[in-house]
């Protein structure tokens, strides 16, 4: 169409490729450069600030181990189902090797770590997705481990907290991955009907089948600043509707604006804020009404 001809010329974008020398400006490990504001800072200093850029507040990616350390009380974490590993239900070529490679790379068995721990003294069952393992994609093991963590919360009558970080369903497990959306949601429903508290904290990125199941099913749906959260991929949407999407499309802030989130919370305040929610939900008549 004629219209397309014109838009094409407008759409030209220029990408800047950092030169080899620029890349080497930052020595491996000691210093970290913020991909957002380009500030170069000590890695130690960054880590001390929960991996939040001290200048611009950009939230650097956290793996599951870092999350446990920063969010749970020191030494409180007890891992569940650590040894559970995936099969290859579709007999997918190279899948087994890819899993093994990621196990070696990350030191974890799958894209979610689950367990029990405390947050400022409050007991919780927790699931932490890890985007460094197969992009946090959800296959049978991710679905099963999360389901068991929910069941554990139900059994112990403690809150369930989930940190999501996932590209969506795991292609290599096909429709079995899709069904994990149903499995986890069905488990959450039972837990919820039994009065269980569900807190979902979406981190970068939370998309596809994960965003369309447990990530969106919290009694409180929260997100870290600047996280990509959405159902369909940006590129697919742009191809479908043939228009450019706003810069902040599918960010935490965008979702908050459109009524999809309760709050966007900086990682530096996250633990205390969540502890505040947990405190309000203390079971068993902790609170006594007193007229002043």
């Amino acid at each position, binding site marked *: 169409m004629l219209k397309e001809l014109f838009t094409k010329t407008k759409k030209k974008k220029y990408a800047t490729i950092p030169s080899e020398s620029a890349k080497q400006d930052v020595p491996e490990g000691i210093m970290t450069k913020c991909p957002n504001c380009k500030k170069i800072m000590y890695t130690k200093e960054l880590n001390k600030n929960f991996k939040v850029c001290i200048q611009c507040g950009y939230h650097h990616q956290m793996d599951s181990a870092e999350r446990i350390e920063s969010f749970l009380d020191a030494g409180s974490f007890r891992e569940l189902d650590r040894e559970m590993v995936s099969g290859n239900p579709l007999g997918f070529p190279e899948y087994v090797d890819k899993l093994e490679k990621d196990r070696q790379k990350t030191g974890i068995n799958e894209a979610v770590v689950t367990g029990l721990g405390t947050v400022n003294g409050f007991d919780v069952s927790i699931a932490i997705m890890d985007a460094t393992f197969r992009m946090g994609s959800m296959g049978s093991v991710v679905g099963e481990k999360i389901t068991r963590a929910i069941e554990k919360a139900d059994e112990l009558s403690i809150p369930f907290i989930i940190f999501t970080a996932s590209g969506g369903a795991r292609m290599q497990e096909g429709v079995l991955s899709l069904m994990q959306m149903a499995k986890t949601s*069905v488990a959450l429903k039972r837990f919820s009907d039994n009065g269980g508290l569900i807190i979902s904290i979406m981190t970068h990125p939370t998309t596809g089948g994960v965003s369309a199941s447990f990530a969106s099913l919290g009694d409180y749906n929260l997100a870290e600043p600047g996280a990509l959260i959405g159902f369909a991929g940006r590129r697919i949407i742009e191809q479908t509707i043939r228009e450019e999407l706003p810069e902040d499309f599918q960010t935490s802030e965008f979702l908050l604006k459109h009524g999809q989130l309760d709050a966007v919370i900086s990682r530096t305040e996250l633990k205390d804020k969540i502890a505040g929610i947990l405190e309000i939900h203390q079971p068993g008549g902790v609170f006594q009404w007193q007229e002043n």
Partner: protein
Amino acid sequence: MAGELEFEKPVLELRKKISELKEFTKNTDVDLSSEIDKLEARLEKLEAEIYENMKPWDRVQIARHPNRPTTLEYISLLFTDFFECHGDRAFGDDEAIVGGIAKFHGYPVTVIGHQRGKDTKENIRRNFGMPHPEGYRKALRLMKQAEKFRRPIICFIDTKGAYPGKAAEERGQSEAIARNLFEMAGLKVPVICVVIGEGGSGGALALGVGNYIHMLENSTYSVISPEGAAAILWKDSTLAKKAAETMKITAPDLKGLGIIDEIIPEVKGGAHRDVAQQAKYMDKVLKDSMSELLVLDEETLISQRYEKYKRIGEYSFPNEFIGVK
């Protein structure tokens, strides 16, 4: 013949030849009956060969056939007194999903399904059967209504997927789908789901948490379209045929994986060849499912659904189980 598919061409050509010969014998004195008998025997063999050894990609073609019967067609053939209900009471009415109340063999039910169009005009109205959040929220509203009046729910699944659009994201496509999965899990009435065409990803699953999941023989159910899978896995969407085989998306595949309950047989060559007959096949399976589920109490229905999904997945503990230390 309109809408013929590549893989079945030999059958259709032979059929045409036979009818030509028959026509010819009628108009002349030449006796070709032995010839015709021979050809008919060959046709039978060929049909068996082709229709009983359908490759996944052949089934994908049938599932996507423009004449494939839609939800509303099945509703008109299987139910009486259908009264369609519109709107999600919050934003609008999404015509990519239809739903309402009806009677199935005289018994009140709620029936809901994806609805695609059969021509361009209708497809635009129905957004090609790809729902927005308000579609899923309408479906949920009707399910809760069914629960209130203790009506069983029958869902027909037939979508390429939830619509990937800007407005859909703004209105919470993810939340709408997730909410349906969550709420369907707890419905106190029987839920029977039937995949009648394409079962595309989360957009299909959002009507698919039931006590029974059935699939028509030539329908598909997948986490992503074969084209999408090929693009992601091999960076080449033309490998869709290969992806259709690898991804295990056909009814026999899903039965093998333990996900679905029954494969509903199809008319030879696909449901579109004889919709009335197809509805009869479907009727039988739905009747059986109703009889089995209507005797169960609320608690059993919910726990049956729980166990059904809890089972799905493949994993193991190769090393010794550690668990909580």
